[in-house]
């Protein structure tokens, strides 16, 4: 693309011909985080501590200190996050190729199924049916699973029962298939993880993490506004913080979609 093309793109963003959709939840202390059994190490929750607020601690300025885990809020999973991806080259957020941070997306709407069944699992036949309508998923595309889960209150969103979380996600076969047969760049969800709430009981456990990261692909979770994206044609901008050897990071996820005019 020459510089004219880029300027045309910038003009389209400015005019609204390309619409920018924010797929990010606000990073706040009350947003649910992944819950592990208490004997494991826990993700530090988001904490915002005021340094000064135009007061004695800083008369003309306002700023905060932040603490949070790499996997809090709307966040990105790098291949190094999972044991299957630990030996891959450039597998951390500071080393992964920056060109991977901008890629198109296919959005598979399973909101009707998820509304009926909190444990809904995305399967190969569901994706094949989607492909019948929208075409084969091209390589190096994101696959985003729309469930409308992001519209729930926090308790229903986490949906913790005495046998763990009940939230939708992919089954093992479809994850392997998306990675090996479709060459996706990554997989994104509205729920707390890329995997289903009960994915610890799948074979292998946590198949999205297992297959995505084992093949150097990425995860996005806690996305919102997926209902504003077309099934195909959106471009995702997802640039995690450049944390040294980081396994992931909260980030701003933007989608560029064809707009009015």
């Amino acid at each position, binding site marked *: 693309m020459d510089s004219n093309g880029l300027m045309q793109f910038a003009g389209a963003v400015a005019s609204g011909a390309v619409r920018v959709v924010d797929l990010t939840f606000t990073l706040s*202390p009350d947003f*649910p985080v992944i819950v592990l059994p208490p004997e494991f190490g*826990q993700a*530090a929750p988001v904490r915002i501590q005021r340094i000064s607020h135009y007061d004695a601690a800083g008369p003309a300025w306002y700023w905060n200190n932040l603490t949070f885990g790499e996997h809090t809020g709307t966040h990105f999973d790098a291949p190094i996050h999972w044991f299957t991806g630990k030996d891959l080259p450039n597998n951390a957020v500071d080393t992964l190729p920056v060109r991977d941070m901008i890629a198109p997306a296919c959005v598979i709407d399973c909101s009707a199924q998820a509304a009926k069944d909190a444990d809904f699992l995305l399967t190969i036949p569901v994706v094949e049916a989607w492909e019948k309508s929208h075409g084969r998923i091209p390589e190096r595309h994101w696959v985003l699973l729309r469930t409308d889960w992001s519209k729930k209150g926090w*308790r229903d969103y986490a949906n913790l029962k005495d046998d763990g979380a009940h939230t939708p996600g992919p089954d093992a076969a479809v994850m392997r298939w998306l990675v090996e047969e479709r060459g996706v760049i990554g997989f994104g969800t509205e729920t707390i993880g890329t995997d289903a709430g009960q994915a610890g009981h799948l074979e292998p456990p946590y198949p999205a993490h297992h297959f995505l990261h084992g093949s150097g692909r990425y995860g996005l979770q806690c996305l919102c506004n997926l209902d504003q994206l077309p099934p195909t044609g959106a471009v995702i901008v997802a640039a995690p913080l450049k944390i040294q050897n980081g396994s992931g990071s909260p980030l701003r996820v933007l989608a560029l979609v064809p707009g009015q005019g």
Partner: protein
Amino acid sequence: MIEPIVRPRRKNPLLRTRLPTSPPHARSRASHGFTRAAAEGRFMLQRCGACGTFCYPARDACPECLSADLVFADAPRRGTLLSETTLHIPADVHFRERAPWRIGLVAMECGPRLVTHLHADCEEGRPVVMSFQLDKSGQAVAFAHPERETPNMADDRQWREMTADPKFRRVLVTNGRSIVGQEMVAALKAAGASIVFVGIAEPWKPFRGEDVLRALEGVEIVPLDIGDEKSVADLAADIGGKVDILVNTAEHVRSGGLLDRQGTSVVRDEIDQSYLGFVHLAQAFGPAMRMRGADGVNSAVAWVNILSVYALANWPVFGAYSASQAACLSLSHCLRAELRPGGVKVVNVFTGPLDVEWFQTVPPPKVAPRAVATAIVSALKRGLEDVFVGDVAEDIRQRLAANPKAVERELGA
């Protein structure tokens, strides 16, 4: 005969809130023997090691034999009220606004005579039972009680100045997820608290006992994550002006010391949930409580910390946890000094291992959560400051007094 107190009406917003004042509080160093006795609810007098004479007030030599061997010892509490006086217009600001105020002279069966504050049901010439109490200045004073229980005894105006009775008071229990927190709520309601606010962190996580808690009348569940500065500040903005008693039921227990733990995230959680949580609560709720120390029947009166007795002596099996508790203990003394101008007590309740999941592998004796709640309500009603609950806590206290070095070696064995 005491008229029962009635639940206070809503405040008239046109009236200025009465500010706390302190009764006279200068004491000699020797007199702090009474402070310790009052803090623990014991009745102690100096006793001469040479001739056995009990004496009062505190002094440096025995009034009978001039021996300097005077030691504070538990003493018999009974005496007779010789005379009583009612002060109608005291010169002291604190008592002037509480007048009329009765004091009396009591002859103790064990010998000395005490000038004392009087319960309204104490009659001249009749037997009385004595205690030492911490007054609004935090210093020990003698208090005479009638020999037997009388109707509405705890509602006595002068007695209530010495205590932190939950009756008609509004209480914040900071963590309603734990069993201790839930027992605390039940005990406070049974003690007549008008409302109990119960903090729940991360309300999206369900918890055991939630249905029961939500169904209780006069119990209000509030969002509170004490590890989060903003969450604590937000709650204080809502209810800070109507918390009369704060019971910090934070419970974050993890086993392990230093060398067998990898990394510092568990240690950091311990500090966040105990020490920093305490700091957040104190900064958010402390100032309003200190300001409301004389605000009528439901004035702010007490701040309760539940501390592990291993705050006093490190137990390496729970070594990092012990250290976080020691930090809280130190902070509690700071808070005590800072709340004292408001007449607000800081009650430290020391316990051994609780009978909860985090001490599952620890052999008995363990303290039942209900016993902790009961001890706290009792401490509030009696106006205590330092309470040891259960055999382990009491054992550690006694061994520490005898030989702290031995405790260190034995806990680390």
